[in-house]
């Protein structure tokens, strides 16, 4: 069945790799590029833990083939911090105990960044709806919503998005 060559920019670095067509983006990121910050939570497309930005919009990287991102720009949780400074959404999760057990956090943060880009001042209900595709299975959503609210209040969200994904 062979392989296909893809060229993709991930967290600002250009890569060119031969991949099997059946390779999922999340597996390419984790196993080929070592971007293990993006996690697999469910294997059923439900949990959103593997959320990354593809050409500036959030997607579940378990539901995208690596061959589909040829020529595209991908930002993972590992590409959010700039010059050693946490992204405002990462900082807000840290300060508001939004991580909890931490497993859903990469996806929650990537989806929250996408949400705030669309709606810089969301209500609690809009935050919950915006995070509809991301599941927390350890604690609950209270501190996660609080973190996103705090990040919105900080007002520097759009400035903090990695250049390629903005």
């Amino acid at each position, binding site marked *: 069945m062979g392989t296909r060559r893809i060229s993709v920019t991930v967290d600002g670095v250009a890569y060119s790799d031969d991949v099997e067509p059946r390779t999922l983006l999340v597996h390419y990121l984790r196993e080929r590029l070592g971007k293990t910050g993006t996690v697999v939570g469910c294997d059923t497309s439900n949990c959103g833990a593997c959320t990354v930005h593809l050409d500036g919009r959030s997607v579940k990287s378990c539901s995208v083939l690596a061959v589909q991102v040829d020529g595209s720009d991908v930002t993972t949780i590992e590409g959010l911090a700039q010059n050693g400074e946490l992204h405002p959404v990462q900082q807000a999760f840290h300060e508001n105990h939004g991580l909890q057990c931490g497993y859903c956090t990469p996806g929650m943060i990537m989806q929250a960044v996408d949400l705030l880009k669309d709606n810089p001042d969301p209500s609690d209900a809009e935050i919950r709806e915006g995070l509809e*595709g991301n599941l927390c299975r350890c604690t609950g959503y209270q501190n996660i919503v609080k973190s996103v609210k705090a990040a919105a209040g900080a007002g520097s969200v759009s400035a903090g998005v990695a250049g390629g994904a903005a």
Partner: protein
Amino acid sequence: MIPAAFDYESPASIDEALQVIAGAGDREVKVLAGGQSLIPVLRLRMNAPDLVVDLGRIAELRGVRDDGDAIAIGAMTTHDDVTREPLIRQHALLLSLAAQTVADPQVRHRGTFGGSLAHADPAADMPAPALALGAEFVIAGPSGRRTVGASDFFTDLFTTAIGEGELLVEVRVPKHTGWGAHYEKFNHVAHTWSIVGVAAAVRVEGGTIAEAKVGLTNMGLVPIRATAVEQALVGQPATADAIRAAAQNADQGTNPMSDASADEHYRRHLAKVLTGRAVLAAVG
């Protein structure tokens, strides 16, 4: 979990895609649109095609244009774009509102209008609004293009009028400018399939319902037009009592399934309640 191995082609035009599919011979082909249903199916190995033909590189399949008395929506236009597109909001608000409820934001960024219609999942949210608004489906094949009306497009469970070697390329939706609209669905938890959904578009003149179109999601193997409700609504005052009375006809002509989410009787009950809510919200 990873999919079984397959060959992959990503043609750059509709014609090239049709040639690739025609050239597949005996190999089983799956057409990949946004992949938000197909990739999970492949990953769970519920299907293992020999060849996947990805429509993602075909620019002519994306976008929305004004086409006189209709708007024409490219099959690969994402749910997110259907939600936001001003032409759709102005002339087919029902589609925009329904698209906004599909799954979750990440899925809406990838999943496509045409892909959802071609997949024809009985619990999917876009078929019933498309049916209610009388959409026409433009299907391209080796011998040219043909157009299929909404009432002939959905033929069975996960089955449409799209034949072997054909592709859905565009959906023409008659303009419903100035109509009120609402999509009301019921599910148990966030971003799961609709147990029942109701798509309603209503034109009100001086407090009276002049025209009404109602489509039902997951009340049978295919989306169903609630014609008894539509007829009962026309000429009625746009009041809660009159609308709820008309909505009592919502399960007429339906054939809902019983499954783990709901039995048939509960679905019939939901159809009536949700139809009342949808039409009431649509009249504003």
